[in-house]
């Protein structure tokens, strides 16, 4: 089947009431203070998310049971203006060191605050395991099941 549909990157943009240096600092060093506890994978609940502030630094979830759930690592570290994280979580909600998708976050001054833009790209790389994706689609625990829950919350 030659239906190679390449998903567009997810792009987000918002302004926050702090200068870029502070916005960058809270996004990274303060990551654990704001990253939603629901945004996690693994067998134990998320205690806090962590970004290690250097190229090659790890990006992971510190879980309640004391274990660490890797999510990826820091690919670019350019405070206060730019950060690129590797997101290596597959459609089956598992860490896969061979999977690369990128999350780029930029911080630009805007008035007294900062315009933060986020791009999650290379999503097509998630499509390599087509069978796994299909299984995930069909199971209630997969993202189709999650989408259903969201849809029900919206209705």
């Amino acid at each position, binding site marked *: 089947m030659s239906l190679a*549909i390449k*998903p567009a990157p*997810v792009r987000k943009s918002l302004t926050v009431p*702090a200068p870029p240096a502070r916005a960058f600092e809270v996004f990274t060093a303060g990551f654990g203070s704001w*990253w939603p506890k629901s945004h996690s994978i693994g067998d134990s609940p998320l205690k806090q998310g962590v970004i290690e502030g250097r190229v090659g630094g790890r990006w992971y979830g510190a879980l309640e049971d004391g274990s660490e759930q890797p999510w990826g690592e820091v690919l670019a570290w350019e405070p206060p203006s730019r950060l690129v994280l590797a997101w290596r979580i597959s459609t089956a909600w598992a860490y896969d060191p061979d999977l690369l998708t990128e999350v780029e976050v930029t911080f630009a001054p805007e008035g007294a605050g900062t315009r933060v833009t986020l791009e999650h790209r290379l999503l097509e790389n998630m499509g390599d395991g087509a069978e796994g994706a299909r299984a995930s689609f069909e199971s209630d625990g997969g*993202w189709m099941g999650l*989408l259903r829950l969201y*849809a029900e919350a919206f209705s």
Partner: protein
Amino acid sequence: MTYGNAAFAALADPTRRGVLERLASGPRAVGEIAEGLPVSRPAVSQHLKVLKAAGLVSDRQDGARRIYAIDPNGLGPMRAWLDQFWDEALEAFKAELEREANEIKEINP
């Protein structure tokens, strides 16, 4: 409306979820999708239009038939999910900085 919200709104309808589930096993024409569903073929076409607008299915012309498919890798819903995921994460980030800005105002009114 963001992509994510469109996708979730599209999936809020149980018939549309049924349509999408019928496409999980492979691309199909409208008539094939409508078979076994308790709605008319024109209604199925309308549902497909909504799913297409939400980015959950794609279509192509095959002679006189129009074939609908979900991304063979199923990435449409994944993308929709990520779209919502980042909305929530960035809202939380913004709320943290707003809380901080308010605290600064309280200290230095």
